[in-house]
């Protein structure tokens, strides 16, 4: 049992219904997250990264989000269609979540000690006093100096980085098996970003949990994740170990992302490379490759219904039928060469 994945998402499709319009937000998303692993979900804004996280947490608006197929299994238990009351017992207890904006993810009217203790008291049958002791312990764990006196601080008295540490303390207060970090460093200064990522990596090892790290920053992925998934328009287009994907990008979109990274010798002080076009509106199901209209490698076959994702090598899958051409083109890329 302990070798089975902590999180299995299988064939998950999800739609939003608003004002008679349907948005196909996730299309047959499947992935596994092993125990003790950091898996990164990469993609641009609106590609479905956060929706995936919210679906796992059961935080999607009930009125208009509908899971049309698939399962989300936490240690073997399906979370799709689980009664709200059972879901509440899982949130914060077995899955913790850290959000993008630490400036607004803490309640301004309560002290941080109270907010961490609330998480403890909600799930563990402990006294108020013990919950506060745990809160203090958590502040120590997330390396907030002088934890004892900071317990009674209000969120506005803390910096962005400290607030994110408090948010992490809240998410981890009940020792969850899985931490979902939804762009945890996007709103922070670059120097603070590194500290927070390091903290998450350290805590992962210390507490033996698994991390689903959602980001749009390939640098973050390279620094922290074991495996990565590239997501585009609600689909996972490439998946594999981080070093394999950087060394052998096998999807037109992954190639586009890598080429957009600034700071190559070729484009120093030059124009930044971008991916032409915009993300498609997901208001109708797409048969072929969703990325084809923007893809530099696209050919006629890309519009046809896609074959199942092909295995590039063990653990490395790509949905791209032009993966050979992509790699041939990318093998001269500076980043790819540095990882090869």
């Amino acid at each position: 049992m302990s070798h089975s994945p902590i999180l299995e998402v299988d064939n998950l499709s999800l739609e939003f219904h608003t004002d008679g319009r349907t948005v196909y937000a996730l299309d047959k998303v499947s992935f596994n997250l092993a125990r003790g692993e950091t898996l990164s979900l990469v993609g641009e804004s609106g590609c479905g990264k956060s929706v995936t996280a919210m679906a796992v947490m059961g935080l999607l608006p009930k009125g208009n989000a509908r899971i049309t197929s698939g399962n989300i299994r936490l240690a073997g238990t399906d979370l799709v269609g689980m009664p709200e009351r059972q879901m509440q017992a899982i949130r914060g207890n077995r899955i913790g979540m850290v959000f993008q904006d630490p400036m607004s993810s803490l309640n301004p009217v309560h002290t941080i000690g109270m907010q961490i203790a609330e998480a403890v008291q909600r799930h563990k049958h402990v006294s108020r006093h013990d919950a506060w002791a745990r809160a203090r312990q958590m502040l120590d764990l997330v390396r907030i100096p002088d934890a004892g006196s900071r317990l009674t601080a209000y969120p506005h008295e803390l910096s962005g980085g400290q607030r994110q540490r408090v948010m992490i303390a809240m998410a981890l207060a009940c020792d969850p098996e899985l931490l979902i970090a939804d762009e945890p460093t996007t709103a922070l200064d670059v120097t603070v970003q590194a500290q927070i990522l390091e903290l998450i990596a350290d805590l992962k090892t210390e507490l033996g949990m698994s991390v689903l790290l959602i980001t749009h920053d390939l640098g973050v992925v390279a620094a922290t994740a074991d495996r990565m998934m590239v997501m585009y328009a609600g689909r996972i287009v490439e998946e594999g170990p981080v070093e394999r994907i950087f060394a052998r990008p096998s999807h037109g979109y992954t190639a586009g992302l890598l080429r957009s990274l600034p700071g190559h010798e070729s484009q120093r002080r030059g124009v930044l490379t971008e991916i032409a076009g915009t993300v498609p509106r997901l208001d109708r199901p797409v048969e072929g490759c969703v990325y084809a209209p923007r893809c530099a490698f696209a050919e006629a076959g890309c519009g046809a219904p896609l074959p199942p994702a092909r295995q590039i090598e063990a653990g490395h899958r790509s949905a791209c039928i032009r993966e050979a051409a992509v790699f041939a083109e990318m093998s001269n890329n500076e980043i790819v060469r540095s990882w090869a």
Partner: protein
Amino acid sequence: MSVIETHRTAPSPVSRWLDYARRNPATVICCALLLAFLLIAIFAPLLAGDPLKINPALRLKPPSDDAIWGRDHLGRDVFARAIYGTRVSMLVGFSVAILVTLFGVAIGVYAGLSPIGGAVVMRLTDAMMAIPAVLLAIAFASLMNAGLLTVIIAITIPEVPRMVRLVRSVVLGVRQQLHVTAAISIGTSGLPLVWRHILPNTLGPVLVQATYACASAIIASAVLSFLGVGLSPEVPSWGGMMADARQQFRIHPILMLYPGVLLSLLVLAVNILGDRLSDALDQRKSRRSGL
């Protein structure tokens, strides 16, 4: 700038208070006024004689030592009636503000969290708000027995929908805030979620609206007394005094002026404090005025 300030020794509470008073004279004056009215209402028996004693021989007598604001058409002490009238106004104003807040917040939070219940509640408030508040209050007052409680209830009912709408719209906004999602993500739900994470963040606008409800309740109670609905005529109230004075308006306009000025002062003080409160709770404005 904050660096400089932290190095300066903290000013004493008194000098900070004086500094505040110098920068916000209107707030301080209104607070003092409200406090004065409150003290007058509480200590009315010490300040004035019997407001009920009728003395036809002395009717419409001009100001004298035993009745410094003169006497009305039944020979009653106008000053005593004005002083005791403060009680009715304050009692009605504050009771209505508290009741409106309690009911308005409870119903408003429900309406903000339950989509179907919310729609029903909103249509009901729409219907109630289509009828002028005073008209509705008169209708309710005439349905019940005369008395202070009747007046309070009759004024509260038409005030509640306004509060409900406000609370609902604030709750709809707060519910979307990330910290509420974060609270749900640690497993908080149900009543604790509402009580700890949604309610406290609606407090600012609710407080401001409560002051406006208080002011409008004071006016409404005067209107009801003036029209002779609700309180029985011998009970001293500013509205009732104005109704009595109306018959003598040509000859003794001053009798109308006393309760009128007091009413205006009280309502003005409450309203200005409400405005100041709303400014103080608005982060951007309060930073500018250094509150």
